[in-house]
């Protein structure tokens, strides 16, 4: 056999052990000078590479050992971002001390915590002054290293542990565990329900970030309605603005509770065709402070703007103002046709400095005013990773400024890039004041969709004072439960309250919302005499309803000019299909809701398991636009693994 170089490489690297083969190669080496030279060089590279790889990383990443208690702590360590060289060692020491401290506290400091009788219970994982040094070390570490670290309230927070030693969450009071859930409502006494037409995508992104880092969010941070509405469902848009909403209803047998059914209510707002949108005059006010120097911040802003440019008309205008170390107009208001100039402006966006945006916003409004398009979409778009009102000496001035400009036709939208949820609400409030939109962005898909939304016409109001009313027929539905909407929304709208209160003041175009109801069907036909329901035999109002319908959804709204419109009314006949035969959108939404109920450990979760969620979601990926649904499947897998360590026996 000829000794070629490939074979010789294998020999040098110890892959050829057969004595006969080795002998053959060694003989070839003795006889062939070129082979010897080659062999020497490969050996030298071998040595060099071994050393180089050894030196490449410096200190190895360190991870605590796998005792049972330490296995719990993995969840916390998974949340770490090991940013400094010394942190791995310190973290492992911290974990060890933390576990010791917890055990100590569990045994001695808070003996009564198990019975839950303490009116204001001490956090179980609180590091008391008796271990002050440990506390300092630990809180310092967690503050610096656990995500999310940028919340202003972060320093007030601490790690919490369950009484079995497992991780609970950030800075939560134990009594917060008693979070509420939307109740089951008797449809005879309370036949009317409803839901708002707004759902934030923010919790989905937060959940994704948390799971990627190996943590489960606290149950009360799971907003099922937001999770469900984080995904796109195929609701055909209404044909014209004459009837600005389309209602889509679907019912199937409940996959998690025997004898119950699930109802999906989808409301789709009219989508304004891209071509018929008005011209835009956009001013991006971009935070270029040092903290924006992360791949899902400033690069996303740039990429988002770049993608948007491709969609704008040549005569539409874009400007970029930065705030950071100093306010700078990196791109005066420029027509899209001047591509290279805009490119240069985008390229010059570099992070550095600290955020102070007062002069920036004034400059941005000045530019927007200078290029004002009468009847057009004039808008300042703030892109930041923090509360952009920070550093403003007089917040009231900012409020007044934004409101005044909104009245004069320049609106303001705000986007938080990969930021901590704790600081989102002031930004959202300012965006509301500026007649604009607030959203959280941590992927290009988000920025693409949301930036495009700023010019697509979605800012055009298609209706005002919109209310969705879901009217259950007590003769078919004994009781119902609105899934999600636990936080601050009253799920039921009893007859005593008259008109439903879940009102959206302004309804932008193109938006849709999905709500899921769990229904308990009536065993036998009841006497439909519930007051308030259009199904009531005694209620002789104008809202007639067919007694064979199980539910009627009505959308009340005003035209954009403020005049009252005829409500849109869509009934659903008592048609029930097995869950497996429901549409993929329906099954996917149910899987998402089931997942949310699992994470909340909802009392209504019924037979939902991670396995069920996974198999249902996998079989209902549908068109899977943007890969979001696949991401969901990955999230469920991650959550399952994390839960497994949190409650090793619970899911077995």
């Amino acid at each position, binding site marked *: 056999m000829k000794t070629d*170089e*490939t074979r010789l*490489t*294998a020999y040098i*690297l*110890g*892959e050829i052990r057969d004595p006969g083969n080795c002998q053959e190669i060694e003989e070839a080496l003795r006889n062939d000078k070129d082979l010897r030279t080659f062999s020497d*060089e*490969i050996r*030298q*590279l*071998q*040595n*060099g*590479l*071994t*050393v*180089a*790889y*050894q*030196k*490449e*990383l410096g200190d*190895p*990443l*360190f*991870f605590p*050992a*796998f*005792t*049972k208690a*330490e*296995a719990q702590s*993995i969840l916390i*360590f*998974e949340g770490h*971002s*090991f*940013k400094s060289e010394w942190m791995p060692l310190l973290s492992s020491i911290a974990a060890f001390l933390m576990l010791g401290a917890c055990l100590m506290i569990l045994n001695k400091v808070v003996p009564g915590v198990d019975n839950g009788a303490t009116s204001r219970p001490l956090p179980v994982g609180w590091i008391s002054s008796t271990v002050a040094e440990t506390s300092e070390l630990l809180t310092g570490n967690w503050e610096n290293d656990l995500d999310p670290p940028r919340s202003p309230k972060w320093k007030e927070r601490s790690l919490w542990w369950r009484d079995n030693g497992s991780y609970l969450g950030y800075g939560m009071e134990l009594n917060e565990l008693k979070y509420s859930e939307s109740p089951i409502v008797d449809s005879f006494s309370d036949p009317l329900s409803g839901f708002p037409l707004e759902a934030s995508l923010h919790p989905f992104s937060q959940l994704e970030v948390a799971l*990627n880092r*190996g943590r489960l969010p606290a149950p009360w941070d799971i907003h099922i309605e937001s999770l469900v509405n984080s995904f796109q469902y195929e609701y055909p848009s209404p044909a014209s603005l004459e009837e600005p909403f389309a209602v889509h209803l679907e019912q199937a047998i409940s996959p998690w509770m025997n004898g119950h059914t699930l109802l999906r209510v989808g409301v789709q707002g009219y989508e304004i065709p891209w071509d018929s949108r008005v011209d835009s005059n956009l001013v991006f006010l971009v935070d270029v402070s040092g903290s924006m120097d992360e*791949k899902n911040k400033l*690069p*996303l802003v*740039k*990429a988002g703007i770049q*993608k948007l440019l491709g969609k704008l008309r040549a005569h539409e205008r874009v400007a970029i103002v930065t705030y950071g170390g100093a306010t700078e107009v990196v791109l005066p208001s420029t027509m899209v046709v001047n591509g290279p100039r805009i490119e240069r402006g985008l390229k010059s966006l570099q992070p550095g400095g600290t955020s102070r945006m007062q002069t920036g916003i004034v400059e941005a409004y000045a530019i927007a005013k200078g290029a004002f398009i009468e009847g057009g979409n004039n808008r300042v778009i703030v892109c930041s990773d923090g509360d952009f009102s920070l550093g403003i000496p007089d917040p009231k001035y900012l409020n007044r400024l934004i409101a005044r400009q909104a009245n004069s036709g320049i609106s303001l939208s705000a986007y938080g890039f990969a930021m901590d949820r704790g600081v989102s609400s002031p930004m959202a409030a300012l965006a509301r004041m500026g007649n604009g939109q607030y959203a959280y962005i941590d*992927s*290009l*898909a988000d920025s693409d969709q949301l930036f495009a939304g700023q010019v697509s016409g979605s800012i055009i109001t298609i209706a005002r004072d919109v209310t969705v009313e879901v009217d259950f027929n007590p003769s078919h539905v004994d009781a119902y439960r609105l899934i999600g909407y636990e936080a601050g929304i009253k799920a039921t709208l009893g007859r005593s309250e008259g008109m439903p209160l879940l009102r959206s003041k302004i309804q932008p175009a193109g938006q849709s919302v999905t709500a899921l109801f769990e229904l308990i069907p009536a065993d036998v036909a009841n006497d439909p005499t519930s007051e308030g329901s259009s199904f009531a035999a005694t209620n002789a109002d104008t809202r007639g309803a067919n007694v064979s319908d199980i539910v009627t959804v009505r959308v009340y709204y005003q035209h954009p000019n403020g005049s009252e419109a005829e409500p849109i009314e869509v009934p659903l006949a008592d048609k029930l299909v097995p869950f497996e035969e429901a549409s993929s959108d329906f099954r996917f939404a149910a899987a998402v809701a089931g997942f949310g109920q699992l994470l909340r450990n909802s009392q209504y979760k019924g037979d939902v398991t991670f396995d069920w969620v996974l198999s249902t979601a996998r079989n209902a990926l549908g068109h899977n636009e943007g*890969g979001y649904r696949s991401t969901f499947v*990955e999230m469920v897998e991650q959550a*399952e*693994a994390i839960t*497994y*360590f949190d409650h*090793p*026996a619970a*899911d*077995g």
Partner: protein
Amino acid sequence: MLQSPSSEHLQWAKEVAECHHEALSRYAYGMCRNRERAEDAVQETYVRLLKQDRRKIESHVKPWLLRVCRSRILDIVRKEGRMSIIDSTILEQKSSDRPHPRQVAEQHDLSKTLLAYVDLLTPAQQEVLRLKFQGGLSYKEISEITGKSVNLVGVILHHGLKRLKTLVSESDPAPFSELQ
């Protein structure tokens, strides 16, 4: 359904993790050049280790760990792939992680220079070199991890080394004596 790991299994997993942690961490870091992502991948690998039936992997635990870690890293990369357009920015950042070999050479650090040249190889060559010289794995083990045949691993490794040799020689006429 997941079963609660026994204390014996946990102890075993702990020992495995301790034994291979450094190799795994270095491998993960080398693959994604990001400490945070590497840590995530390594930890997800341990999570899988705890769920895994010991009997099935005991005989080849190191390649198994590296294979799982590799697939986690690929998942992470794929996830980032969803940000398609922005990737040009990310890739720019990645490629600029390590300066050009000539710049590195000026620092007179041979190891860094060598790794800077490794960066110029194909991804497959880089990976196989790393598994061989960092992980100390055999062709067969590398084959199990990468899903490539043993012969192909040998060929990739050989061509990688040969190309590296050429790159180093072209830049410096007498480099090999210093690599000893």
